[in-house]
């Protein structure tokens, strides 16, 4: 990345976003361990630069579909932390009124239209949103976030083919963290580069360091320039590191101590903060202030979620079907 593009304000915004995601997910980790949160949890700790870089390149009214590991994207897209937290705690004030939980946080008000617990299944939804945008002559784009594991699903290929064929305003954003659950890329993919697989559909593709939010942002901006110009879909593959287990409580026996050490060495928050300091774009006190702000916002959101009411059991049958009498 050329030095002149290193815009201090953008960089600090990216760092702030990453700090909030990290603080939020650490809090979720702790409250889950303390059994304050039901169900199971997939954290994106280590992958924050992807969410921050991606969201910083999107407009507020662009649409986003995310995955089971989606807290970071939802937060980066601008969702209300309190309602995200409330959803994870199973509370009525959550974005999905407690029906979705950690894996299914949709926040329509900021363009997050879904988070999927079925690997790959959200990809065609993003393509369908893109098709609607195309048909309605609107200017926004739709983005599908997915992991390296999702690239092996049939529906990835069905979607990529249709999106390319119809020149849909769609960005396919792969978070390649090298694992599908407990299975490393070398065991689950015949071709390790997702970018290479995108070539089969002639999708313009970028392969970037997913630990560097500026690299992610730059690739997404470049890709979206084409997408917004009506040139059809594009793919960005972000190489990233999952610093924790697949789910909280995963003992990660399938990863060696040296690999875990290597992962820790790729902590995007530390790397990015260090870089900004090196480039004199961030002082120690500024960094401390951003971190404190993040912790404060998160503490407030978690407290809100903890105090919020559980849904009324009498409401359990609401929203199974849309009833015409409903206002929304």
């Amino acid at each position, binding site marked *: 990345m050329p030095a002149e593009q290193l815009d201090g304000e953008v960089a600090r915004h990216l760092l702030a976003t990453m700090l909030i995601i990290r603080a939020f997910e650490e809090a979720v980790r702790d409250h889950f361990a303390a059994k304050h949160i039901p169900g199971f949890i997939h954290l994106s700790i280590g992958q924050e630069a992807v969410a921050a870089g991606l969201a910083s390149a999107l407009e507020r009214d662009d649409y986003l579909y995310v995955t089971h590991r989606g807290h970071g994207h939802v937060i980066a897209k601008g969702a209300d932390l309190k309602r995200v937290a409330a959803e994870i705690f199973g509370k009525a004030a959550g974005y999905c009124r407690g029906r979705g939980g950690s894996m299914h946080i949709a926040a329509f008000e900021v363009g997050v239209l879904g988070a999927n617990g079925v690997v790959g*299944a959200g990809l065609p939804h993003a393509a369908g949103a893109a098709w*609607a945008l195309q048909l309605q002559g609107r200017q926004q784009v739709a983005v599908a976030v997915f992991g390296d594991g999702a690239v092996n699903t049939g529906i990835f290929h069905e979607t990529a083919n249709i999106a390319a064929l119809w020149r849909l305003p769609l960005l396919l954003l792969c978070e390649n963290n090298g694992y599908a659950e407990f299975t490393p890329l070398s065991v689950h993919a015949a071709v390790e580069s997702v970018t290479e697989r995108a070539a089969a559909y002639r999708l313009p593709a970028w392969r970037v360091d997913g630990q560097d939010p500026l690299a992610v942002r730059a690739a997404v901006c470049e890709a979206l320039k084409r997408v917004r110009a009506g040139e059809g879909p594009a793919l960005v593959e972000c190489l990233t590191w999952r610093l924790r287990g697949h789910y909280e409580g995963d003992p990660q026996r399938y990863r060696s101590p040296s690999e875990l050490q290597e992962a820790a060495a790729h902590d995007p928050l530390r790397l990015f903060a260090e870089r900004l300091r090196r480039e004199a774009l961030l002082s120690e006190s500024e960094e401390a202030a951003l971190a404190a702000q993040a912790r404060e916002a998160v503490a407030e959101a978690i407290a809100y979620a903890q105090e919020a009411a559980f849904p009324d059991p009498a409401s359990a049958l609401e929203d199974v079907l849309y009833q015409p009498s409903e206002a929304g």
Partner: protein
Amino acid sequence: MAEKRYVRAVNEALCEEMERDPAVCLLGVDVGAPGGPFGATRGLQERFGPQRVRDTPISEAAVVGLAIGAATLGLRPVVEVMFMDFLALVMDQLVNQAAKMRYMTGGQARLPLVVRTQTGYRDSAGPQHAQSLEAWLTHVPGLKVVMPSGPYEAKGLLKAAIRDDNPVIVVENRTLYGLAEEVPDEEYVLPLERAAVKREGQDVTIASIGIMVREALAAAEALATRGISCEVIDLRSANPLDLQTVRTSLEKTSRLVIAHSATRCGGVGAELAAALGEEAFYLLDAPITRVGAAFAPIPFSPPLERAIVPDRTAIIAAVERVLTP
């Protein structure tokens, strides 16, 4: 009122709804220029353009997924899945995605989405092109399932499905596509959740769905010559089931035969029988009797297929059984 073929009624429903609402659009294999494998979308691409009537690759799952995303943004997609057996390919998108989207998002999503598909009846389509699988869908909260039994129903129910803000699966019957019957000239829409009494009678109620409505009517006609009076109900909707209409009929007849072309095991008839057993047991003078396919795949060879998939004779036998003291 003019006579129209079933497939023509489907075509008119699509055309009228596309005319009425620019958000309605069609997706499917061969639905564009070819006009659909059975002609249901004939002329529509010419009229509404290739953007709104879109040929798709053979990617059924992704196409239903596309419709979900598009519906979320306000389109009203109608997807054609060529054969009902192929619903197996789109089950994740129907069951885990479309059906749950509204609920899972706490009411943020609204999904005006229609999947049209079709099954057949005793036409040697073979094991992978002839099964009636509606019971798979009726087990899933969040989906509506209708099975038009004739041209009138095909048009009215499809129009209602397109206007509904929920995922609706419309199961047509290709064996009826060529059948012509009277269809009103003026606009009409049939309610998705209501059964219809097709023939009034006193002795036995026959609750039927899809093509078996025709067999039930034929059975009732034959039985009438022997002095047995059957009330024939077209359930129309496999989910939700209109229990009230059947129950009202039972208040008169006290005897129930249920007929569908799907296998009896775990079929819509099983649900209907169980629900009425719970709620209307006191109305019954005889055990509820189900007519449905034997528990086997649908074979190709005509005598084998006839051995598996029942017709009016099985219904007549069932009526005789419930009338035997």
